[in-house]
């Protein structure tokens, strides 16, 4: 009854961009993200180019770029990145080295959950930032003080996240392993931890991101090298482009680490992918 069914070929489907939870072509997805960044940069350029905002408050993208070249040439940028990265890595490693075994114990044994959780919850609600003055008193303004702040800001959340990573291992995995004749410790090692590993890896990625936040907080208050220190010093001299550069560099470094974790996740856990 409908002639178009026979005569016309399959009509080109209109791309529907705004269906509830609908899929869109991948190209559209990427283009949308790129154009938003483009619009942001364009807006920034326009605002500064026509003098709508004083460079003291918002320098032009070009000024920030110039600051970048000068910092790269003088080696300051590299020095700051190195100092900050070192603090992050050591601080985060200390936190993780403790959170991993304790979180695993808490996730597996109710006893350890009962032992640590009330205390952990108490400390967790104490803002890490409020510890800055105390830590300066304890450890001065050197690297140790940064490690302590990163530890306080990261550990108490990380330990709970690792506990949850372990807890969501399906009960049936443990039960079936018992019926296969494995003992408790074999199950813990070969089944529970193995099963929790992808979740724990994701916890590492997220907590390392937090470590950046706390590092900058610590460096803003007291330091003589580092990205946070550079930002604080620039504020004193109204070098706004240095502040913005510092913020951007931290953002990019965070993005790079995040990406590195995601790539290693796919390499470590190829079985998590569903497609074939």
């Amino acid at each position, binding site marked *: 009854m409908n002639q178009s069914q026979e005569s016309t070929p399959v009509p080109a489907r209109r791309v529907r961009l705004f269906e509830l939870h609908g899929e869109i072509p991948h190209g559209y997805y990427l283009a949308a993200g790129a154009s938003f960044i483009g619009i942001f940069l364009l807006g920034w350029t326009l605002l500064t180019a026509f003098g709508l905002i004083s460079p003291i408050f918002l320098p032009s993208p070009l000024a920030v770029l110039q600051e970048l070249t000068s910092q790269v040439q003088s080696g300051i940028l590299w020095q700051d990145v190195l100092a900050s990265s070192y603090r992050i890595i050591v601080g985060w490693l200390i936190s993780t080295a403790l959170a991993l075994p304790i979180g695993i114990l808490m996730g597996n044994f109710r006893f350890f959950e009962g032992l640590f959780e009330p205390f952990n919850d108490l400390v967790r609600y104490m803002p890490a930032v409020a510890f800055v003055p105390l830590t300066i008193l304890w450890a001065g303004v050197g690297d140790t003080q940064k490690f302590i702040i990163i530890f306080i800001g990261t550990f108490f959340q990380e330990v709970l996240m690792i506990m949850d990573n372990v807890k969501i291992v399906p009960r049936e*995995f443990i*039960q*079936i392993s*018992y*019926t*296969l*004749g*494995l003992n408790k410790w074999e199950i813990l090692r070969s089944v529970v931890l193995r*099963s929790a590993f992808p979740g724990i890896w994701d916890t590492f990625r997220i907590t390392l991101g937090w470590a950046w936040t706390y590092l900058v907080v610590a460096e803003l208050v007291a330091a003589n090298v580092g990205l946070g220190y550079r930002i604080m010093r620039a504020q004193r001299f109204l070098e706004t482009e240095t502040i913005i550069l510092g913020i951007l560099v931290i953002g990019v470094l965070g993005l790079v680490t995040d990406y590195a974790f995601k790539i290693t996740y796919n390499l470590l856990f190829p*079985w998590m992918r569903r497609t074939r």
Partner: protein
Amino acid sequence: MNTTATPPKLQARNVWKVFRTASKGQLVVMQDLSLVVHQNEFVSLVGPSGCGKSTFLMMVAGLESITRGLIQVDGQPVLAPGADRGMVFQSYTLFPWLTVFENVRFALRKSGLPRQEQDQQVLHYLERVGLQAFKDAYPNQLSGGMRQRVAIARALVYKPKMLLMDEPFGALDAQTRLLMQELLLQVWEMERTTVLFVTHDVEEAILLSDRVYVMTARPGRIKEEVVVDLPRPRSLLETEADVRFARLRKHILTLIREEARLTMEQETGMNTP
């Protein structure tokens, strides 16, 4: 039937299960349950939901404590889980980080067999369930029915004394379910492993079993033991066409309906103030 001196494969005597709940105090889910499973027998346990049939299976597996009474496997009391009782769950319990082959071989970790022998056994059982072509796939890449076939291969490969199956096809769609029943029938008729099978599907129970135990509503007890006198080897189409099948089906459904009605009355009685 069995009058020899050797003890039955599985014997449960006057088993009780009482849960202590915070709100209602003691909850008796199983009362004085007794049953027997003989060597090379396929026995099913059916009953209204909440009658404790899965709980009983977990008790046999040693994964759930026994409040009172005794469960013996080969004359030895069940105290803990062990490799003599293999288990297949309703939920998917394959390890996602292992391939199909590795998942089945995982069951042989404690076997002490040389590696080559292990591989041979794994391939043999994957062939039995028709999945040798998928040996290198990960569970995430398989359908629900295929996953349960791997789970069955894993439960058979280490040759437990008996197999405990807790609604293994309960999560599958109707068509896959029928195919899986036929497959299990074939595999079982070759292997003749002693099986205790929990299901709420009466037709499934009759098709597969030598005997069916019908349980009462909570607190669960054995209401009746039904002997399935259908010839083997069986097949889905022929067995279900048998008049005796229809008769057994009607009989068991009537028994369960009585109990289900009782459960409903209990529940509504409890809910109304």
